[in-house]
Every structure is written in structure tokens, then in C-alpha cells.
């Protein structure tokens, strides 16, 4: 079922807007319009529909108008022209009060830099949408705590946003949006400010959530890989216009024009995998703090037999094995210093996996991915081979 319908929507910034709109109707290009009127076209005759329960991704480089477009949907930016329907109601023609009701009940937004209020605790942040709707203290506390619990952050509810890592902050951003129980989620580059590993984690979480929630999600990104990973359908934007709308498969196999084609090729090129793409979260001990008993416990928890050893700045010192840790624990040693083995292979994050393959076959230990001596992740033989083989399969399909 159709949830959002966008019809010929344009947004023009600057002066001489009527003239610029006239030129938009005559299908003049964005640069021509800028030359003739001095007005900048942010969004240019955009039309699309989003179905209920769908993740619709709008993908484009910076300056392509994607962030403007998402803001037209809840009218954080007023559209210059065109109609936007949500559940058949014309948002773009609504009065202030009606618009406020829609914003309060139908859609919530998640921001690139999280948009959390620094003067409010996580709980107060999560409560915000409910609070301004005038929901009673008890009820909003229950709902907000539930939302934080779902995000796994209930324990932090009285902390302030700046005490949390980026990934945790964005979980709060998402929890705040979901506490409102909106039908539509607007996500503006929601994961772009996060580290690659965390970003992947958050994408998975969003997909898991969507399994049960079935919200209608409009997701903005500049990353085609992200778009392909989470989008049911993808719209590609350039210079304010939507160039192509389709499933990931359609866009990869049947690019609408050269611009999209270069994009898609770019994706393939980026799939020439590097160490960073295949590395997994490292399991490590802190040599300045942890003793052999802690090391053994961690190995049991994570079901590994080798731990990376780092210092308090997360600089790589070597690795320790389960046998050595056991022996040290029997000798009642307090630290793991004596059993750290420093002969370990390290690679930079941008090294190609092909080149690593030879090393990893001969290495008895996982390979550490380090940058400026800091441990970023580890490469495990199985994962590397799997990554390479799936890549080769895809490459064959494309050829």
C-alpha cells in the first residue's frame, strides 16, 4: 500500500523564485537556471512513492539535494512547488497545527549527527517527543524506558549524550524516534558519522528491527554499499533530480545512464576488498591491567584460544595463547607480561586481501590490522577466504 507519494516537488533557494520555477517547468538545467536567475535549485521535480513497510533509500553524493528532499517531507524546509501526500493527506498544503499533529504522531526523524539534546539525559532525550505531546509523566517514562531497553541502553538512562560513543548516541537517536511509535521513520544519513564496523552493526540492527516493526523508512545515504545493503528500493539523485528508482538489482544490472553506471562501477571497484572490509572485532587483554585469570575467562566467553595483547592506549603488544595463560594462572602470576608473545603479523587497514591471503595461510596466529600501532581488528583465515570467494562469485555474475 502506498504510504508516501511525492509529486513533482521542487525546492528553489534564493531570489527570483517564480522565474526559476518557470524555467524548471521548461525543463532547463540547474546550471542554466542559476545563470539566468541566480536561484539555486535544491530539489528539481522529484516524484516517487514509498510503500508501507518499505525501506526506501535515497542515495546521492553531497550537494545532490537528498538532505533537502527528506526535509521537504516533514516540511523542515518548505517545498516551493509540488505535492506531498502521506496516507492521502496533502502535507504541503497543511496548516501549522495540522502539520504539527502529523510531525508528532506520524513521523520521527533520525539525524546524521544524532541531534541529541546535550542538556538532557538519555531518558529525557528519549521522552522528548512524548513530552511535547503532553503525555503524562508516568506513561512517557515507561515508554521511553522501554525504547531504551530495546536499544540495550537502559543502564545508561541517566547519563548525558556526550558521555557515550557515537554508536550508542545513534542508538539513542533511534530509540527517541521509536518511542514516539511513528508510522514513518526519516533517517538522514543516520549511520554516516559512525565507524565502519559500528555502521555495519547498526545496519544489521535496523534490518532486525524492521523485521518486527514494519515501519515505513526513508533512508538517506551517500554510500551505495549501504543503500544496496538495506534498501528495498533505491532512488539515485544527482543535482537535485532523481535519476533512477529501482531495486538494488535493477540499478546494478540496468543503470539508467552513465552517471549511475560510473557509480555502480565504483561499487565494484570498492569491492576489491581490503583488510578493513574483512576484519572482525578483536578480542584482547589489556597488558597493563588484566591478569591471566581474566584472560582465560575472556577466552571462554568469546570461545577463542588466542587473545591479542594491547596496552591502555590500545597499542598492539603481541598475543597470548590459552596454554600460556593457563600455566601463568597456575603459577599465580598477577599480570600477563611474561607470556605475551610479540611475533605477530600486522597489516595496515588498506592492504588488499589478495595480498594477505598468502600470509594468512602460513601464519599460526590471526593477523592484526593496525593503524598507527593501534589495533583495529583481526583477520581470521576463514573470514578472509569467505570474503574473497563471495566477491569472486559476484564478479563473475557481473562479467
Amino acid at each position: 500500500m502506498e504510504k508516501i507519494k511525492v509529486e513533482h516537488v521542487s525546492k528553489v533557494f534564493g531570489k527570483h523564485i517564480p522565474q526559476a520555477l518557470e524555467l524548471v517547468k521548461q525543463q532547463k538545467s540547474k546550471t542554466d537556471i542559476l545563470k539566468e536567475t541566480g536561484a539555486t535549485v535544491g530539489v528539481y521535480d522529484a516524484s516517487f512513492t514509498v510503500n508501507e513497510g518499505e525501506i526506501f533509500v535515497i542515495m546521492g553524493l553531497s550537494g545532490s539535494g537528498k538532505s533537502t528532499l527528506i526535509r521537504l517531507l516533514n516540511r523542515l524546509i518548505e517545498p516551493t512547488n509540488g505535492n506531498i501526500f502521506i496516507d492521502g493527506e496533502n502535507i504541503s498544503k497543511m496548516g501549522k497545527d495540522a502539520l504539527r499533529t502529523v510531525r508528532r504522531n506520524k513521523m520521527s526523524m533520525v539525524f546524521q549527527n544524532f541531534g541529541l539534546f546535550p542538556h538532557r539525559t538519555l531518558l529525557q532525550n528519549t521522552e522528548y517527543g512524548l513530552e511535547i505531546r503532553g503525555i503524562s509523566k508516568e506513561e512517557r517514562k515507561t515508554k521511553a524506558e522501554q525504547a531504551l531497553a530495546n536499544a540495550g541502553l537502559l543502564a545508561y538512562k541517566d547519563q548525558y549524550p556526550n558521555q557515550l560513543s557515537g554508536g550508542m548516541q545513534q542508538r539513542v537517536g533511534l530509540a527517541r524516534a521509536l518511542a514516539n511509535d511513528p508510522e514513518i521513520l526519516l533517517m538522514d544519513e543516520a549511520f554516516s558519522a559512525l565507524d565502519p564496523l559500528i555502521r555495519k552493526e547498526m545496519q544489521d540492527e535496523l534490518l532486525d528491527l524492521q523485521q518486527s516493526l514494519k515501519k515505513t523508512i526513508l533512508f538517506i545515504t551517500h554510500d551505495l554499499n549501504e543503500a544496496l545493503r538495506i534498501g528495498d528500493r533505491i532512488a539515485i539523485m544527482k543535482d537535485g533530480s532523481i535519476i533512477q528508482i529501482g531495486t538494488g538489482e535493477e540499478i546494478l544490472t540496468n543503470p539508467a545512464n552513465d552517471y549511475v553506471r560510473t557509480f555502480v562501477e565504483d561499487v565494484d571497484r570498492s569491492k576489491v576488498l581490503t583488510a578493513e572490509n574483512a576484519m572482525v572485532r578483536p578480542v584482547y587483554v589489556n597488558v597493563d591491567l588484566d591478569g591471566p585469570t581474566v584472560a582465560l575467562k575472556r577466552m571462554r566467553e568469546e570461545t577463542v584460544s588466542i587473545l591479542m595483547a594491547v596496552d591502555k592506549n590500545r597499542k598492539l603488544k603481541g598475543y597470548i595463547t590459552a596454554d600460556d595463560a593457563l600455566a601463568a594462572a597456575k603459577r599465580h602470576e598477577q599480570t600477563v607480561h611474561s607470556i605475551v608473545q610479540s611475533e605477530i603479523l600486522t597489516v595496515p587497514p588498506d592492504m588488499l586481501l589478495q595480498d594477505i591471503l598468502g600470509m594468512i595461510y602460513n601464519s599460526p596466529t590471526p593477523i592484526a590490522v593496525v593503524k598507527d600501532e593501534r589495533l583495529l581488528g583481526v583477520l581470521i583465515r576463514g573470514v578472509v577466504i569467505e570474503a574473497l570467494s563471495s566477491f569472486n562469485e559476484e564478479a563473475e555474475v557481473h562479467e
Partner: protein
Amino acid sequence: MNNFLDNLPTLPLAPWVESAMDWLTSNFSVFFSAIQKTGKLLMSQVTDLLIGIPAIILILLVVIFAFFVTGKKYGLAAFSLIGLLFIYNQGLWTHLMETTTLVLFSSVISIVIGIPLGILMSKSSVAESIIKPILDFMQTMPGFVYLIPAVAFFGIGIVPGVFASVIFALPPTVRMTNLGIRQVPKELAEAADSYGSTSSQKLFKVEIPLAKSTIMAGINQTVMLSLSMVVIASMIGAPGLGREVLTALQRTQVGNGFVAGLGLVIFAIIIDRLTQSFNKKKEL
């Protein structure tokens, strides 16, 4: 060429301003005298109240307050104790209380007018473009000039002193409130809007809390400026430490002038540090 310039008639700006003043004073005299009377009554009551409290109790209250506001540090508390005892010892206690009343009233009035004006400025670019040059004017015009209309409207005494101080001390609060609200990160303002906040919800739940430390810096400046008007306002009969300085000046009594001036400095430092540490505490 020079001849031509000399032959131009003088633009009668000064007479215009004067007739405007005359018109104001004669048509609104009831209004001004009502303000004058209530203001004077109110302020003398506050001064009486302050003087009525035994000096030692007031000093101890200030010291305790300073101790806790600065986060249980001894510096400002010790300074307040010694400084205030010194002022009392020099026989300036009553004058200090009068000055306190003057600063208190002009600061409170400035804040009550200034913050809403600043909010208006931040919300409307038209208001900003109108108010900004007026603020520039208010700040660059020498403080003495405000004494003239003050006397015309309210006669002499503490009320015209407060009037002149308010004009002089108002701009920082207005400017900093405007600045603070305009500096709220765009994404946070958008977040507030996107959840359907009304404009007053956005203002009170998001913008003012985030602008608080900037606004407090403006208030601190306003308090200090109104304190700096104390001496100038004494020229139109405002009582307090300023009048002691003025008297000493008129009689070339270097010693008395120095002591009264020192009293003002001590008072200024205490007030400045108190309002500042208030701000720091809020930032946490």
C-alpha cells in the same frame, strides 16, 4: 567653496531633540512622576531592608553563599569576608547598600527587558536589523548623555540613576541572548521541530537551555556595566559609593576618593566572580 559650506543653514537637530523632550515631559508627566514615586518608594524600602539587616549577618551570608557557589572553594569567600569588613570599617556600609540597590534594580530591569528583546531578535531578522543599530547607538553614546533625559523625566535621585544605568547596561544581555539562541546547532533546532514542538516548547525546552551560558555571560556584562554607571549616576543625585567618589573629586580629597573607589572595586570583583561562577555551575 568654504563660503558655500558656511552659508548652509545649521540643521536644527538639537532644538528638535529638545522640543521632542519637552513634548514628552509635558504630555507624560503624570506617567513619569508615577514611576518616579513608586520607584523611589520601592528602592528606598529595599535599601532600608538591607541596612536593617545587621552588617555582620549580611557579610556572613555573602561569604557562605560565595563558598558554595564557587564549588566549596575558599578564595572568593575569604576575599568577600575581608573586602566587606574593610568597607564596613571605612564607614561606607550604608553607601554600599545604596549602591547594591541601584545595581540590583538596574540589572533586574535590564534582564527583564533584555532577554525577551534578545529572543525577539533571534526569531526575526527584521527585528534584528532594527534593534542592532539601536543597541550600537546605546553602547557608543557616552553614558553622561543619558543623564540629561533621565533628569528631565524623573528629576534627581536614584530613579533617574537606575533609568540611565538601564539604558547603558541593557545591550549585552540583548546581544548575548540573540547570539546564544542563534548559535543553537541547526540540527538540534531541526530535531525539536521534527518532533512537532510548538515554538514556545522549542524555546523553553531546547533553545534557552542551550543558550543559557551565553545568556549568563551577557547578564554578567550587564551587571558590571550597571555598576560602572554608579559613579556617573551620582552626578544626578543617585546615592551610594559613587557619590562618595564624586564628593571626593569635587573637594580634591585624594584619600577619601581612593577609599570609596576601592570599595567599588571590591564590590565589583565580588559580584563579577559570583555571577561568573553561577554560570560555570550551570554549564555542568
